[in-house]
């Protein structure tokens, strides 16, 4: 009989309006490195949060059997004392504190009410040696590179007597040398009877390091298969990741693309925090009037960064590139200039970037174009009310009054308010970043209908989405992004999920096939 350390049975986790996990079952053998892969939103992170107690026992359905007995974790502390430690994609170190202090954060070694610094330091030194870091444990974490920080995180996990280590996309911020280093350590740990679960969608890494792969899709387990002799069937993984039936219905739409009205050439943007790291690499694309163009890419591909840098250099440091609107080159240095040139951007994070949640629907609807309701020096509040009522009717915003505060609205209606706000600027080019994230099916359909309506009015529409079916159902043309580069463009007729996924993870043959398209 196999030695199973962890079994998660029929895990179902429901967020209001969304079934994030739908009966996921997974079993992990002791001493394995078990990879979990899936699209954005497939439920990988949620599953790990259930396992580590971030989503406490009782907030999900199903059973967790760990080392032979059922677990009911209510918080991270409980899961950690059982030896399950999760290392998140965004590292959670405190940069101003030393390595030692970070390792023992929350688990300080205390003698007579005071922290025993000497003992902590000694233990930290040992832990650092175990993860192969040759550093003074008194070094402040801010002086460490990302790779080193990751190793410190693992050292921290070891200090908690870890039996099952969960790594959430551990290599997403690492370079090749650091990645190799990390993998070496993982193999090391494997020899010491520590089991690893690794979330990743990098196929080459999965092939290199893991013993077993489980693919998740739409909150369900699709299949689990072992990696034999460092070989994985990439096609099989891709098919599992995307191979859902098109169960979502999209409103029928026939685009009538006109001439090209929006062009971006040779667009390069640098990461504002990491000098030298390019988040957009020589991107070229165009959109026709009345056309809906999609942008696909996995997390970290630079989709949002590209759009926000185009929208008045709201993100990053501009390096080079040009924007042409209706064939005329324009200089856009601020958001208000972007608005003036007829560009609208609906951000992906509605609550933090799209809305002032404590404002009323009425004021929000006109907030990006106050000029339109200004008469002389003063705002014309009657015009404002008329405009808001008109938007409410046209977009079907469900609220008892336009004076209601936007945070009393449901997610779908909030999103409609954001759309209303930007329609009021009368844009020619409308960029929608994850327009239907976190809203229910009915509201999605309505938003999609709105988008089609905008295209019919002759606007150039750009949709950025993590949901491939949404892009395939809505767009006339789809660009794919990988690590800041546009890796290809497909027409609706030739695109399918597998092709797109191949271009999004940039397997070589897909890239060379589509290079011609970029230049076309």
């Amino acid at each position, binding site marked *: 009989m196999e030695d199973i350390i962890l079994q998660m049975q029929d895990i179902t986790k429901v*967020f*209001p*309006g*969304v079934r*994030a996990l739908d009966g996921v079952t997974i079993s992990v053998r002791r001493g394995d490195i078990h990879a979990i892969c899936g699209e954005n*939103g497939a*439920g990988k*992170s*949620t599953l790990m*949060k259930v396992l580590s107690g971030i989503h406490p026992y009782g907030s999900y359905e199903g059973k967790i059997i760990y080392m032979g007995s059922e677990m009911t974790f209510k918080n991270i502390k409980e899961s950690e004392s059982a030896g399950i430690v999760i290392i998140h994609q965004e590292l959670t170190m405190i940069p101003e504190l030393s390595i030692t202090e970070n390792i023992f954060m929350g688990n300080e070694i205390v003698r007579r009410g005071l922290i025993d610094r000497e003992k902590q330091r000694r233990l930290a030194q040992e832990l650092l040696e175990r993860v192969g870091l040759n550093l003074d444990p008194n070094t402040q974490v801010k002086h460490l590179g990302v790779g080193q920080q990751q190793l410190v995180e693992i050292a921290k996990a070891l200090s908690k007597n870890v039996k099952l280590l969960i790594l959430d996309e551990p290599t997403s911020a690492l370079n090749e040398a650091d990645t190799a280093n990390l993998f070496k350590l993982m193999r090391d740990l494997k020899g010491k009877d520590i089991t690893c679960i690794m979330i990743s969608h990098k196929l080459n890494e999965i092939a290199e390091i893991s013993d077993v792969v489980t693919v998740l899709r739409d909150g369900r387990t699709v299949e689990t298969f072992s990696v034999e002799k460092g070989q994985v069937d990439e096609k099989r993984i891709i098919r599992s990741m995307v191979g859902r039936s098109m169960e979502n219905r999209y409103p029928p739409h026939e685009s009538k693309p006109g001439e090209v009205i929006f062009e971006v050439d040779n667009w390069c943007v640098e990461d504002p925090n990491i000098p030298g790291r390019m988040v957009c690499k020589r991107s070229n694309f165009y959109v026709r009037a009345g056309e809906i163009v999609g942008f696909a890419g996995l997390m970290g591909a630079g989709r949002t960064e590209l759009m926000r840098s185009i*929208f*008045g250099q*709201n993100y990053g440091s501009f390096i080079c590139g040009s924007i042409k609107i209706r064939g005329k080159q324009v200089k856009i240095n*601020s*958001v*208000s200039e*972007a*608005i003036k040139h007829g560009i609208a*951007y609906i*951000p992906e994070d509605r609550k*933090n*970037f*799209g*809305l*002032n*949640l*404590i*404002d009323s629907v009425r*004021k929000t609807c006109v*907030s*990006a174009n*106050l*000029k339109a309701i*200004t008469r002389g*020096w*003063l*705002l014309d*509040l*009657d015009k404002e*009310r*008329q405009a808001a009522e008109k938007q409410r009717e046209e977009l079907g915003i*469900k*609220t*008892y009054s336009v*004076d*209601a505060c936007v*945070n*009393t*609205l*449901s*997610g779908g*209606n909030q999103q409609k308010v954001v759309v209303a*706000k930007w329609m009021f600027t009368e844009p020619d080019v409308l960029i929608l970043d994850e327009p239907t994230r*976190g*809203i*229910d099916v009915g509201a999605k359909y309505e938003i999609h209908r709105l988008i089609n309506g905008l295209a019919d009015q002759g606007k150039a529409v750009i949709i950025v989405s993590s949901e491939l079916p949404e892009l395939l159902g809505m767009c006339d043309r789809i660009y794919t992004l990988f690590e800041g580069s546009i890796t290809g463009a497909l027409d609706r007729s030739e695109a399918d999920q597998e092709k797109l996924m191949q271009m999004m993870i940039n397997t070589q043959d897909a890239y060379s096939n589509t290079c011609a398209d970029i230049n076309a």
Partner: protein
Amino acid sequence: MKHLKQILGTEFRQFTMVIALVALIIIFNIATGGKVVTPSNFQNLLSGNAYVLVLAVGMLMVIVIGQIDLSVGSVAGFAGMVMALSAREFNLPWWVAALIGLAVGAIAGAWQGFWLARFNIPGFITTLGGMMIFRGGVIWISKSISVPAPEELKIIGAGYLPDWGPNTGLNNSTVLLGLLAIAAFTWSQLHKRRRIEKLSGKKEPLWPVLVRIVLVGLVIGYITWLYSSGRPGTSFPVPGLILVVLVIIYHIITQRTRFGRHIYAVGGNKSAATLSGVNVRRTYFLTMLNMSFLAALAGIIFVGRSVAAGPSDGTGWELDAIASVFIGGAAVSGGIGTVIATMVGGMVMAVLNNGLQLLGVGADRTQVIKGFVLLAAVVFDVYNKQRGRGSITGRLFPAKQEQPKPTEGTPA
């Protein structure tokens, strides 16, 4: 209940504080045996607190953008001193000196706004620095001695409106102002009703409007009578009039201009404001500049009261101004608060001061009580907002329709 709601209109939420204020005045009046509601006490109440309320107007805007200004007392003292000195040393006419004082305030505000807008230094820090810089500055330039100011400033600081025309036993200027106020209110109410009818295409009932006009008319009439029936030669105080004009102007700025909307947008969600094309830096800069400008004005009004500028003028004013804003229901995190509510908050503080003083309560215990009132007001406000329930008035008059329940999905 429904009728009451119709009369009060939709924005009755802000009436909680007004009710508290009126209750406070009535309680103190009874406790002191009628010493509170007298013409001379009301005149003092207004001219003795006008400078703090002027500060509170600016402070409201600063707090709405999510900042704080600790330097206003020092800036007020500094501007007043510069005015007094420039009048004395260079023999300038009073109004030139006053303009110089205001200019000094504007420059001080530009200085503090610059650090906030350009380098994103929190207002708390820049104005803490400013508090020391300008306080030190006052003492330095005055050599720690009070400086007499031009006599004419008395009008601004403690003056009364002239009396003219037939002898009615009342101050005719005040009566005229009162009548103008009633006329303006009547016109605005009727105009509003016409607008609503035009917008909705439905007939609005006339009676709530009329009841409102009569009620408010009576209140204004009573206040007018109170202020005009004092000793001969007294009237509605000039500093009070300056305050009323400022409140009207700033109410319009905050509620009816693009700049006003930008203030609330920046305070409510800075990132969203930026992505809506709001120039956040400019908004920060202008708000801080305006604050110090109003501080200088407050300083000049205060100098006018005693016709002398002292080295310690303005000490501690920032705290009174901040307290007024928060008692008036502004949010510590920014984005919420109005000029009118701030004035009510400021009056609550002023009436507390005044009533306790008339009761013979010492300054020490007055301070303690004011502290508790501030805390209670903010706790009350936070408690109400936290659980998403309406204010007490909101619960007394439940909304006509149920609000749709927010449903929110956040898959990881």
